[in-house]
């Protein structure tokens, strides 16, 4: 028990991210409605983004904005230590990923509207039935 507790504290975040990712994957595979599938894809995406952001986190560090540097004066001669600031690199990569995710979400919704215009349904099994009729 004594060596299990530090393990839980150190890793429970990753376990919950994996559970979130499993929820998204399940919705993508097993749900019948196309919009539900898109929601599952978004949940999957955010779980992975969450994992990426979390690996940049450092204990006892502050936000990745340099302190006392507004205006960009050279006056401050203080040396900047990397250990005082949270790793900004995953933030940058995931910032672009979020904006791409809204773009793909918009295109997916446009496709859903188009499919509904033509087949009057969004359920996968009904859609397959309509397709086999023709």
């Amino acid at each position: 028990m004594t060596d299990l507790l530090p393990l839980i504290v150190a890793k429970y975040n990753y376990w919950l991210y994996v559970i979130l990712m499993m929820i998204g994957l399940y919705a993508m595979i097993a749900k019948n409605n196309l919009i539900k599938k898109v929601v599952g894809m978004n949940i999957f995406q955010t779980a992975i983004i969450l994992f990426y952001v979390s690996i940049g986190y450092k204990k006892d560090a502050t936000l990745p904005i340099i302190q006392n540097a507004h205006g960009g004066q050279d006056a401050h001669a203080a040396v900047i230590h990397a250990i005082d600031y949270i790793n900004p690199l995953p933030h940058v990569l995931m910032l672009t990923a979020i904006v791409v995710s809204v773009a793909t979400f918009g295109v997916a919704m446009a496709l859903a509207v188009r499919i509904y215009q033509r087949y009057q349904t969004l359920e996968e099994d009904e859609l397959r039935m309509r397709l086999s009729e023709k």
Partner: protein
Amino acid sequence: MKFLGVIIVCLTGGLLLYGTTDFPDWGDPSSPASTHLSDYYIEKTIEDTKVPNIVTSVLADYRGFDTMFETAVIFTAGLACFILLRDFRGKKERFYRHKPTGVVLHVKDGKKTLTVGKEFEHMDKDWVPSDLIIKTVCRILIPFIQIYAMYVVAHGDFSPGGGFQGGVIFGSSLILLAISYDLKTLVNRIKEKVLGIFAALGVLIFVGIAAICMPMGGNFLDYTALAPLVWDPHHVRALGMLGVEIGVGFAVMAVMAIIYINIVSEGRHDEGL
């Protein structure tokens, strides 16, 4: 299908849970992700670029190619929505409402149109009377939202924010106009062509600023080469980033409005939420 899905998900989840045992501990400052490249970014940002917000400086300067092609992805998404949904045929039937009396005219001939103004107004099939309170509140709120969006773009070098966030907030102010009045108000206020030009212009600003660096004697996206052009050569990289962020903001704003208008009116640009 459900059973198969559960099996696949459990297998994947089990493998990943097994994999977490090799991950670095939560918040470990010496994890591999935080030791190699990011230290350089954190320590040299002020020295190189004079921008306090490290995320902006990495986004727009050190990793500028990433952001440039990502803006192209946003533009492509707007284009895809336009191509998928846009319908130029127009509707056959039109409904008009005579304002003083409330009489509804149903025009079946698609070519006949009435002038909309003081006497007549457009109507949808599922028309609801416009609410005065919502309209007035939104009319007061929209300019402030837009000023805030511009602040977010302009202040992105110093605080959280930047082109993406500012562009999305500006676009959502346009969407608010379409929701609180009706879609026709937005489409008449900002023409479809203008939105398309803005989306393309945003990408052009980004690529243009990046490309001007080459005849000035630098590499692509090397803002230091622009020093003779700006009034403050000391902060040239910060100014280059600001220009790039404005381009991103234009593109994102226009694309959000294009996607919304096309989805909500099924590409006919006449009636919507």
